């Protein structure tokens, strides 16, 4: 089983990202689960969401405490939240940033998802883009399934644009 923790701010789509990832993995023929750490936080406040992916049905009904991957949608969170908390020793972190982020203990990948978002979508919503990057970097989910789920989640031109942006991030990884 692999476990992924998403960090974002309310309104950035961290919960949706966790769900899209779970749905894409499901499309790949795996079992998956996604759920938010649902707070009463409003737009802008730090939020978390989780995804589990496994070849077998998933029995666990508690939060992810030792993720294999951490995905950070906003590098501003680094000063507020310990995004590395509980990360497995060989765990990896993917951060949306235009600066280089370093960690002594963990492998960190940075991607300027905001740049892609502004180019493709015209708004700073990066959840689908960072998933494209995640797909290539980790190989945990296929880009085909991911793009399909993105288009299902956002029907019409918005979905097409998001899919194109995710593909771009995938190609960059």
């Amino acid at each position: 089983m692999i476990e992924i923790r998403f960090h974002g701010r309310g309104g950035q789509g961290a919960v949706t990202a966790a769900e899209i990832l779970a749905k894409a993995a499901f499309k790949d023929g795996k079992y998956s689960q996604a759920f938010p750490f649902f707070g009463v936080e409003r737009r802008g406040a730090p939020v978390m969401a989780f995804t589990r992916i496994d070849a077998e049905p998933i029995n666990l009904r508690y939060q992810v405490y030792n993720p294999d991957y951490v995905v950070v949608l906003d590098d501003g969170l680094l000063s507020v939240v310990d995004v590395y908390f509980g990360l497995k020793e060989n765990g990896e972190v993917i951060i949306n940033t235009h600066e280089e982020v370093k960690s002594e203990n963990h492998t960190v990948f940075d991607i300027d998802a905001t740049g892609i978002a502004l180019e493709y979508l015209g708004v700073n919503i990066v959840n689908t883009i960072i998933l494209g990057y995640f797909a290539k970097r980790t190989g945990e989910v296929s880009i085909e399934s991911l793009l399909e789920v993105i288009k299902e989640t956002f029907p019409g031109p918005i979905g097409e644009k998001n899919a194109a942006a995710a593909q771009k991030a995938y190609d960059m990884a």
Partner: protein
Amino acid sequence: MAKEIMTTNRAVAEAVKLAKPKVVPVYPITPQTTISEYLAQFVADGDLDAEYIRVESEHSAISATLGASEAGVRVFTATSSQGLMLMHEILFAAAGMRSPIVMANANRAISAPLNIWNDQQDSIAQRDAGWIQIYVENAQEAFDTILQSYRIAENEEVMLPVMVCLDGFILTHTVEPVDLLDQKDVDTFLGPYVPKFAYLDPERPMSLGNFADPGYYTEARYDMQVAMDKSMDLIKEVGAEFGEKFGRDYGLVEPYLCEDAEIIIIAMGSMCSTVRHVVDELRAKGEKVGLLKVRSYRPFPFEEIDEIVKNADKLAVLDKNFSFGIGGALFADLKTKCHKEAYGFILGLGGRDVIPEYIEEAVELTKNPVKEVTWLGLKEDE
């Protein structure tokens, strides 16, 4: 059959759509809200041919649901927490009027202090209302149970409302795979609802919700108990028939590795999944532990439980609720008839995560008991 992936709230809404209720009065409340939203969308899109009533409170939600049910149609409503508390009075009326309502309750803690996260205090507090209460473990069971509930509630020998209890957020907002059923299969399984005993029709005037003096009230309540008893077999029958038809069968309880277990953990709802995981891990270490999931809390399946726990040494009962001065409700209920050595554990209140460590601790404390009821994960003075 199509396998899809969705939240439990969505699975509930999909089941409701397939059951084709005619009237759906519902009031939004976290974490039930998306059920009310999905149903609104189904009606707006013409996918569900029902009257959706945007009531101004949960009290009116259950009142309008009861009114519609008594007017002779299949109904549905859903709520959570404070909303269920606001319904309290009318829950008794619905059961007393023998109205076959099916309602989903997204289990959530009760104020004060205000809390939006999961525990089961809300529905436990309604346990004496005369409703059948079924606690589900995952999205699939929620979907299946909504459908079975109509069969149970509308059975002529039962005619009691059914509350399907699903853990807030842990289930309601978790995306996971669900096998949906075809409309044709559901239509065959459920059949139409045809009211037989009591309905509002100018062609055949009846008075419903009457006043009963001491000469009749006791009998009216006793009849409900008889119906509750009868529902016990029916829940099993319907669960078995569902299994034959669709490959997933259900009963009043669900034992997991209990045959040779020395300690049996008894629990309800979503935490049973994590308990299974812990049981597997402990078994791998050679510990004889099992899980007894209680699915039907009302009626309470004493006989089934007795049969399953008869060879166990000790029981560890997990409760996401508390009856002050006694302990957890499941524990207290169990103790009224089951004389096994049993210990109660309170956990998961107000959304406190039920982690494997708590369950392991419950097993340890059952082996080496300190007191009868223990609050797990309690932070001492900081």
